[in-house]
């Protein structure tokens, strides 16, 4: 049992526990905080997989910006908790059964297909992070320049859309 494997199992258990916390927590604020911890665990996985830029983007964009937006909306609406009451009593057991089926299917397939798959070593301190970033941004701004520009337009559209959706109706005299 080497160091990386122990680290992997600790992080994997934390990630799955926080995902379960998201599923069962009654309060939406707790759910959001569980999700932040889950994103942090996944960011460490990205570091182990030799993707430092993605790990930092995960922390700043996901755990930072997106989850702050979530917490802001939860507190703005004051909708931490919903009143109890089930409309469809058969839905929950059915959903759990379907999810168990999905997990069993995916697990069997993955284990069968990738039994002899590669062992992923982490880059450690061997690879220079700055070199990785330089090469990656070079590829982003040459081969993937068009998707990059399309993404910027998408973000602009999303920003305008969010403003239009949340602005108050002015009424007839507008």
């Amino acid at each position: 049992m080497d160091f990386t494997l122990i680290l992997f199992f600790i992080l994997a258990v934390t990630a799955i526990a926080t995902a379960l916390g998201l599923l069962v927590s009654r309060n939406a604020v707790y759910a959001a905080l569980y999700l932040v911890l889950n994103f942090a665990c996944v960011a460490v996985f990205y570091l182990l997989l030799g993707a430092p830029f993605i790990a930092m983007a995960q922390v700043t964009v996901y755990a930072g910006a997106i989850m702050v937006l979530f917490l802001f909306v939860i507190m703005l609406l004051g909708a931490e908790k919903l009143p109890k009451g089930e409309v469809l009593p058969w839905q929950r057991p059915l959903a759990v059964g379907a999810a168990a089926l999905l997990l069993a299917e995916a697990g069997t397939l993955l284990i069968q297909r990738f039994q002899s798959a590669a062992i992923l070593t982490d880059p450690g301190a061997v690879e220079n992070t700055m070199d990785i970033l330089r090469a990656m941004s070079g590829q982003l701004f040459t081969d993937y320049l068009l998707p990059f520009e399309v993404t910027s337009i998408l973000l602009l559209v999303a920003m305008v859309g969010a403003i239009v959706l949340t602005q108050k109706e002015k009424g007839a005299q507008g």
Partner: protein
Amino acid sequence: MDLGGIPLTYYLVLSAALFTMGALGVLIRRNALIIFMSVELMLNSANLAFVAFARSFELTTGQPVFTGQLFVFFVMTVAAAEVAVGLALIVAIFRTKHSIDVDQMSSLKG
């Protein structure tokens, strides 16, 4: 220093487990915000599988390949845009219905 490694299968099984929990969250929760967070969890698990495969490909070819990582970068951007619009929709629905219970969002108008 050789730190050993982790089989690709472990990452894939973890990713599948996280995805299943996200799907389960979408199915069993009634709070629209938590359903939305579960969607984020599913996107994130897919990203993890992407980066794991990218690393596997990189180790196979022996030179740095960034296609998988760049795809994850684009997925993150799209997720950010999706969250902005989705939360705006939830705020707009809350204004008219005074609730974010998805069971009450059953009518198309009003």
